[in-house]
């Protein structure tokens, strides 16, 4: 009951969030000097008042702001996110096309980050202040401080340009054709159609962007897991376990880990939410046709319908992931109360 009430409150918040985000973008559109027509009309057309007026009328920019806003919300209620200035297609269609690439990348990244983050955290906390602890902490702090775009550049330079071990940018080689799009997830599509060489190629293309993207989250997970484990290690029941004669690794993995896991789940959940939205730099460098790249192109060309669409998608997704994380808390630790 308590949980239901909590969930319904969060769902209500999603509606408020949608209102907030759309109005933020609408307020932004009113700030000078960013005028979309400057980005879309040629110099010649800009001096022609009629063309400018037609452009503004075509996109409803001639209406007062509140009417534009109501119109947008009305369309949104019908599941219509408007039409992109830039691609001239419904934003929803654009998002559907770009989203699978991002989800594929973010999922592999979060799997890598979670696996190594938890492994490193457990090793660090089992032998604190040892050589291995210092070494792994250095890796984790490197992970959170290395500029992703620079890391990507180094990876491409060393592994692609110099050693030729990794394929170039993109989801698939320039000379290969992806499997027939069914889901637009290259991995799933190639498995369904049993095109194993395509699957292999897609996985190779995924690996490095996913590592670059996941490094930051890996560092955060390692750090959180380590400190949360160490805090748990000072509890009485851990002393009891030690008194029974259990080894360190057994104590950490069997007794401490479960109790220290809640903060780690938070970081994994937030990290995944951020990966879906924060892949702008990595996607741009690896020419990865995902949401991040779409967002970047939309932002620099002041394509407000597209920006609003991306922002809504990522923000709602972020809140939903948080909600799922909160529900998982309750399953792991029944003592947790929702309020």
């Amino acid at each position, binding site marked *: 009951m308590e949980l239901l009430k909590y969930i319904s409150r969060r769902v209500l918040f999603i509606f408020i969030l949608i209102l907030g985000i759309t109005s933020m973008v609408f307020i932004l559109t009113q700030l000078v000097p960013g005028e979309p027509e400057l980005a879309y009309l040629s110099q010649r057309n800009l001096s022609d008042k009629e063309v400018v007026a037609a452009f503004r009328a075509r996109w409803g920019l001639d209406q007062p702001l509140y009417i534009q806003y109501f119109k947008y919300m009305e369309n949104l209620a019908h599941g219509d996110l408007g039409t992109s200035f830039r691609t001239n297609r419904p934003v929803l269609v654009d998002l559907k096309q770009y989203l699978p690439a991002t989800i594929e990348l973010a999922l592999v990244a979060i799997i890598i980050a979670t696996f190594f983050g938890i492994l490193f955290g457990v090793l660090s906390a089992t032998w604190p202040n040892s050589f291995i602890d210092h070494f792994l902490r250095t890796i984790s702090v490197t992970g959170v401080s*290395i500029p992703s775009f620079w890391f990507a550049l180094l990876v491409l330079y060393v592994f692609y340009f110099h050693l030729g071990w990794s394929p170039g940018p993109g989801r698939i080689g320039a000379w290969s054709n992806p499997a027939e799009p069914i889901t637009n997830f290259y991995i799933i599509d190639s498995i369904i159609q049993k095109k194993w060489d395509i699957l292999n190629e897609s996985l190779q293309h995924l690996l490095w962007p996913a590592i670059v993207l996941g490094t930051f989250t890996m560092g955060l997970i390692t750090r959180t897991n380590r400190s949360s484990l160490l805090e748990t290690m000072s509890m009485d029941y851990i002393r009891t376990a030690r008194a029974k004669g259990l080894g360190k690794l057994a104590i950490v993995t069997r007794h401490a880990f479960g109790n220290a896991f809640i903060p780690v789940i938070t970081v994994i959940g937030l990290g995944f939410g951020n990966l879906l939205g924060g892949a*702008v*730099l990595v996607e741009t460098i690896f020419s990865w046709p995902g949401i991040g790249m779409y967002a970047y192109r939309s932002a620099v060309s002041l394509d407000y319908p597209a920006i609003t669409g991306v922002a809504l998608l990522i923000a709602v997704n972020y809140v939903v992931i948080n909600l799922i994380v909160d529900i998982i808390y309750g399953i792991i630790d029944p003592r947790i109360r929702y309020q």
Partner: protein
Amino acid sequence: MIITLRNFPKDNILFLIGVLVCMLWIIIAVLSNEIVPYDPLFQTLERRFEPPSFEHWFGTDTLGRDIFSRVLVGSRLSLTAGLLTVLIAGTIGTLFGAVAGYYGGLLDDIMMRVSEMVMAFPAIILAMTITATLGPSLYNTILAMVVVSWPNYARVMRSMVIHVKQNEYVDASRTLGSSKIRTLLKEVLPNSLGPVIVMGTLEFGNAILIFSGLSFLGLGAPPPNPEWGSMVANGMENFGYWWIGSFPGLAIFSVSIAANFLGDGLRDYLDPRLRKTFS
């Protein structure tokens, strides 16, 4: 939480490295115009793409400019952006969080929903949109970064204030007749600042990463000002010449890792629970 030189965490090597690297960069940023070997804007087109040598320690770029000098001068923009962002966002966030946590109730509810909303809005996309709309300039980029980062401080501050305001000395201050706002500013705020300071240090590194990321995308300070992120972008366009992008990237990395060492050290120091580990 008074930090004196005597009880400073001297045994933490990484913390000391962080302090030293940050101080070094601040000195470089202040003196850069005096100590650079070459004019960072001076183009020598016949000496383009020269690899690192004794003459040009970090080589030369696409226009024959000395990369070492550009990296040194580039510290000015990055550090200014990082510091201003942390100071402005930190102040706004701290006050916001303090008010929400101290007054509680409906006000707290509304204020926290507002901060959640900003946090849910994808930071880099919001920042990109703001800078693309207002036009790329140092101050617009800083404005964008402040908008996306203040809620972090607000949330940390709020939870600290809720904790601190239950102390008896806060009640005592109220009983002695000091007003709510005075109690908040004189008693609660100073005692809640610890975690916010740690956060500010970590966020400084983060701000430099975001700033250089935006510049990398062409949304930071406009050229020809030397800026680390746009220098890495220049290296990306001239892929075969590794030195063009590597050295500025290394500079970003050194500042952000130093900020992390600093923040981690401060946190361990302010939170003694993390210091005692079973052995």
